């Protein structure tokens, strides 16, 4: 077997597996197992056809279209793993910025959770919770800092997200983003 054949078959598998939203270890497992199967088919076909190129073409034909396989393999990845990768995945910058935007929203909400009781204490000095050790001096600055950080996070990530979207739409006018790097 020439070196070109396994490389060609590995590239074929990469087209199917590269863009799947799955963990690196799952993809590694899939790659190895699918390559082993393809090489087995290839050996069978080479024995039958006695021609490397025809055998490689027949191997791919027997295995199916990489795009169809990618869709089927994606559906076989547990949804928890897909969700996790959508939120925290290294490759998904858009999702990461969206996620950081929501962290900002959360920070604003928590910040207001400190500011509002502080305002309430300013209006009515009688403590709402008598055992509460934190007075206005702690609640107010902490709440304000948290809210400001939240607003900055929201603004920064919203801007980044829009920029990324714009750069994607200008670099890929046909919307072809189906095949990309492995990880």
């Amino acid at each position, binding site marked *: 077997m020439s070196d070109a054949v*396994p490389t060609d078959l590995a590239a074929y598998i990469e087209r*199917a597996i590269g863009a799947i939203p799955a963990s690196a270890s799952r993809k590694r*497992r*899939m790659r*190895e*197992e*699918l*390559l*082993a*199967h393809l*090489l*087995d*088919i290839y*050996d069978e076909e080479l024995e039958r056809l006695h021609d490397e190129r025809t055998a490689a073409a027949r191997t791919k034909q*027997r*295995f*199916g*279209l990489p795009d*169809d*396989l990618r869709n*089927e*393999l994606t*559906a*076989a*990845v*547990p949804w928890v793993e897909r969700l996790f990768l959508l939120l925290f995945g290294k490759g998904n910058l858009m999702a990461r910025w969206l996620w950081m935007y929501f962290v900002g929203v959360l920070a604003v909400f928590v910040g207001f959770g400190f500011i509002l009781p502080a305002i309430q204490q300013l209006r009515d000095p009688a403590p709402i919770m008598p055992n509460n050790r934190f007075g206005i001096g702690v609640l107010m600055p902490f709440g304000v800092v948290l809210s400001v950080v939240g607003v900055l996070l929201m603004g920064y990530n919203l801007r980044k997200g829009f920029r990324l979207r714009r750069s994607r739409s200008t670099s890929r006018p046909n919307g072809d983003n189906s095949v990309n790097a492995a990880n």
Partner: protein
Amino acid sequence: MQNINGDMLRGHLETLILSTLDQGQAHGLEIIRRLHESGCGALRLKEGSLYPALYRLENAGLVHAAWEEETKGRRGARRRIYRLTAKGTKELNKGREAWRHFVAVIGGILGEPA
């Protein structure tokens, strides 16, 4: 005889795989061979389609997979050997029962070919 392709197999592929593993543990290519032999050559399945079904079965705990140690002739790429679990055997029996029921009901409606 009319060929049975992937679309026609949809919904039955997983039970068919469980059934082939009932004959003993096997790797992907062996499962395909068993399916083709049992289907008398009428089954036309893209071999890649087997793996998503196997992964679903593995996630559901119906099959267990282990890496084969031997890699001879495959440039270091190992195969995974699948075997039926107890849960898988139960599911296979359920699948067979459901199929018998389906055939009885639909067969009763369609009748024998003229």
